[in-house]
């Protein structure tokens, strides 16, 4: 038996019929066609499926689509609707914060929430903050640098992001 749910995805309201066992990440990728959200481990370890639900970062492989009823979701496609890179994305590009890119959307969604609560994180807070996101290419250092540089930008410290 299906259930009717209403979600707001990147600002657009969708009313859908879903099977209760449909995972949110499958709804987003397969029903709604937004494939920027990745499926990595499928066991809530790797963070590649991280999206924002009502502003909070969550792993969409471990949430049922029905649990997202009446919530507002943001995926990587929604962070810069005008097609331009936002500051965090630009920072990843400038600091070589990605290599294969598989973890990047989840990383960016997680970082978005963290900076929302803590605009000036320490390196320790950054590393703990992305502890739920695995990257097998960068060794994390360039991601942490991206993050720190972004924090520099928003708190007005001297930025070492090359422009």
């Amino acid at each position: 038996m299906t259930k009717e749910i209403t979600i707001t995805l990147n600002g657009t309201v969708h009313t859908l019929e879903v099977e209760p066992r449909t995972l949110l990440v499958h709804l987003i990728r397969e029903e709604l066609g937004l494939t920027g959200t990745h499926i990595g481990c499928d066991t809530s370890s790797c963070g590649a499926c991280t999206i924002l639900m009502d502003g909070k970062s969550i792993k969409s492989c471990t949430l049922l689509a029905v649990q997202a009823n009446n919530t507002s979701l943001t995926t990587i496609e929604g962070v810069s609707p005008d097609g331009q890179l936002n500051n965090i994305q630009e920072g990843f590009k400038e600091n070589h914060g990605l290599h294969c890119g598989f973890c990047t959307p989840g990383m960016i969604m997680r970082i978005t929430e963290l900076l929302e609560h803590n605009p000036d994180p320490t390196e320790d807070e950054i590393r703990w903050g992305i502890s739920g996101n695995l990257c097998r290419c960068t060794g994390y250092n360039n991601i942490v640098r991206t993050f720190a540089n972004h924090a520099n930008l928003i708190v007005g410290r001297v930025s070492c992001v090359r422009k």
Partner: protein
Amino acid sequence: MIPSSFEYESPTTIQEALDLLEKYGDEGKILSGGHSLIPMMKLRFASPECLIDINNIPGLSHIVLEGNTVKIGSLVREAEIEHSDLLLRHYPIFADVTKLIADPQVRNRGTIGGNLAHGDAANDHPAVMMALNATIMITNKEGVREVPIDEFFFGFYTTAVQENEILTEIQIPVPPKGTGSAYHKLERKVGDYATAGVAVQLTLDTNGICTEIGIGLTNVNPVPLRAARSEDALRGKKITDETLAEAVQYASEDCNPSADLRGSEEYKRAMVGVLVKRMVHKAAERAIAAL
């Protein structure tokens, strides 16, 4: 991985949820944060006929001080505990434990009630609740019953919560002045279950006597374990190298770890000892600061 088919209900009152539990019996499962249950369903270790989602029931997300008791609703998320001034003021142990539970995204969903009701000795809150002497409030159609934490864990994934009941609140006594608490678990990586974990809360008087102490152990026994002999070795005494050595030895002896990828039985017993020592010291430092 996709779970097998099930019905999904999202009641908006406790009464409605209890009706559904009655209807489905042991085929109905409460869905709270879902970060233990959904992975088990994806692996088909669990395949309930109906999920009863309690997230839309108001009145289960409070953290309040009433008299000399802190009350925590079962739907309170780990991330809310992490940032609760009230909890961190009285129980610094929550800053230690929440940071070590899974990862930030999981803590945004995972709940304290689910962590306890899952009945997994590898979860972190059971040991903490033993150290803090919590009482678990369980609601059924007759009303609310209180279960002391020492009578809550029955066995492997089994707790005092019956088929027709819901864990609705956790109550923790506010400790007296001069109390400190601490938790640490040894883990191989972020989000791992503990190789061993130890929770301690203790109270010191102005003469340095340990007047009260609670010690809980994580993942070194089939059920969450209170290190009762270790507590007795320190209660009413000063914490000295001698009394602490005794407490360390008892905890290592009384736990019952099994060898797995995280280490041998001997190694885990040794780590329990190391952590008891460190956490008693850390809790004592905090107790002195709170005198």
